[in-house]
C-alpha cells in the first residue's frame, strides 16, 4: 500500500505545482497585456444616425493567449434611459499579437428626443457604463467596469425667436420677418431647415415660411424666416409653430407665443 500512497503524494505535489505556476504566470502576464483606446471619431450612417467609432488596440505580450475579449459601452441619461449600447467582441488574441478593432456605437437623436426634448435646447451630461471582459489564458474570466460621464451639447442651445418685423408686400399681404438664433453645441454640424407657421389670437393660420440652416459645430447661428401673411388676419398676439427638419432629427411643433 505504500507505493500507491507515494504515487498519490507525488502526483498531488506535481499537480499543485503545475496549478500554482500556471495561475501565477497567467496573473503575472496580465501586466504585459496593454490596451489603448484611440481618439473617438464621429460619422453619419446612411440612415442618419450618429456613429461613434473608437479604435481599440490590444497588444498581448503576455505568456498566454487572451480569449473572449469583449468591450461593451452603454450610454444612458441621468434617469437611466439607455440611449445606445455598443459591443465589440474578439474571440482570441494570441500571444505576441497586436489587434486593433473599431468599437462602434450609433446614436439616434430621434430616439434621444423621445426621452426628453431638453437634449435639443440644454447642455447636459450623459452617463457611460464601460465594461471590458476577457479570459486570461483563455480560462480565467476577468471583468473590469467603470462609470464615466460625457458632456452632451445641445444642437439648438439658447434658441430664440426675435420680434416680428413687418414689411409691406402688396395691398392684401405683408411680409413678416422673424429672426431666429441659436448656438450649435453638438458634436456634429447641423444642416437642414426651419419651418415656421404663424397663427393669430383666434388660432387662425396666417402663413408659413421656411429657411435653410447651416450651423457648424460650436458655431452661433443667426438667420430669419420670411412669411407672407394676410394683413386682415394680423392680431396683436398669437403664436408660432416652429419645426426643425434636419437629417438627424425632425422636431416640432415648438409653440412660441408672440405679442
Amino acid at each position, binding site marked *: *500500500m*505504500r507505493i*500507491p*500512497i507515494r504515487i*498519490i*503524494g507525488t*502526483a*498531488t505535489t506535481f*499537480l*499543485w*505545482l503545475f*496549478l*500554482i*505556476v500556471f*495561475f*501565477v*504566470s497567467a*496573473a*503575472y502576464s*496580465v*501586466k504585459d497585456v496593454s490596451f489603448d483606446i484611440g481618439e473617438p471619431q464621429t460619422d453619419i450612417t446612411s440612415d442618419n444616425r450618429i456613429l461613434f467609432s473608437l479604435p481599440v488596440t490590444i497588444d498581448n505580450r503576455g505568456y498566454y493567449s487572451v480569449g473572449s475579449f469583449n468591450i461593451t459601452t452603454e450610454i444612458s441619461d441621468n434617469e437611466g434611459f439607455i440611449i445606445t449600447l455598443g459591443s465589440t467582441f474578439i474571440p482570441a488574441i494570441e500571444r505576441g499579437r497586436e489587434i486593433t478593432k473599431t468599437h462602434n456605437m450609433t446614436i439616434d437623436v430621434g430616439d434621444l428626443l423621445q426621452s426628453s426634448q431638453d437634449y435639443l435646447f440644454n447642455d447636459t451630461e450623459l452617463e457611460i457604463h464601460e465594461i471590458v471582459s476577457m479570459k486570461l489564458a483563455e*480560462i*480565467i*474570466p*476577468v*471583468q*473590469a*467596469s*467603470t462609470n464615466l460621464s460625457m458632456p452632451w451639447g445641445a444642437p439648438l442651445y439658447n434658441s430664440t425667436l426675435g420680434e416680428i418685423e413687418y414689411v409691406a408686400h402688396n395691398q392684401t399681404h405683408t411680409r413678416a420677418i422673424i429672426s431666429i438664433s441659436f448656438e450649435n453645441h453638438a458634436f456634429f454640424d447641423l444642416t437642414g431647415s426651419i419651418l415656421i407657421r404663424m397663427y393669430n389670437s383666434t388660432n387662425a393660420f396666417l402663413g408659413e415660411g421656411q429657411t435653410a440652416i447651416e450651423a457648424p459645430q460650436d458655431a452661433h447661428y443667426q438667420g430669419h424666416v420670411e412669411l407672407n401673411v394676410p394683413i386682415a388676419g394680423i392680431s396683436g398676439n398669437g403664436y408660432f409653430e416652429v419645426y426643425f427638419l434636419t437629417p438627424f432629427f425632425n422636431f416640432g411643433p415648438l409653440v412660441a407665443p408672440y405679442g
Partner: protein
Amino acid sequence: MAEAKKDFGKRLREITFKALKATIKGVLFYGTYFVLSTFLTPISEIFPNFQQAIEIFVMIYILFIITEELTSGTIFQCFFNTARALFVIFYLIFLLKSGVIGMTFQGVSLIVDLRLFLVIAMLLSLLGLAKSMLQAINFLNEKAEHTRV
C-alpha cells in the same frame, strides 16, 4: 549500558535526520514561495490584503511540513497530514469565498472569476485528504501486523 548508549545514538541520529529533512522541505517550500511571490507583485498592488493572506498561508503550511516531518513514523504524522489537507480546504474557502473576487481599484470595478482554480484546488486537497486517510489505515495495518508477529 553499551546497548542503551547505542540506542540513544541511533535515536539522536534519527531525530537529527528528521529535523534536517524538515528544514530542507521548509526551505524548499519557502524558496518556491519566494520565487513565485515576485511574480505576484502586480496582483498585490491591486488586491491589498493578498500578500498578507498568502504569507499567513505559507507560514502555517511550513509549520505543518515541519511537524509532519518531525512526527514521521508515528500516527501523529497522519493527523498532521489530515489537518494540513483540511487547512488548505478551509483556508481556500475563507480566502476565495465563492471563487468570484470583486474589488474597486482607482474607480474601476474589477471581478476575477477563480471558480475553476477553486474547484481544482479543492479536488487536489481532497486527494491529499484521501492520501492521509490511506496513510493512517496503512500505518495501523502495519502496526497490527507487527504486533501479531
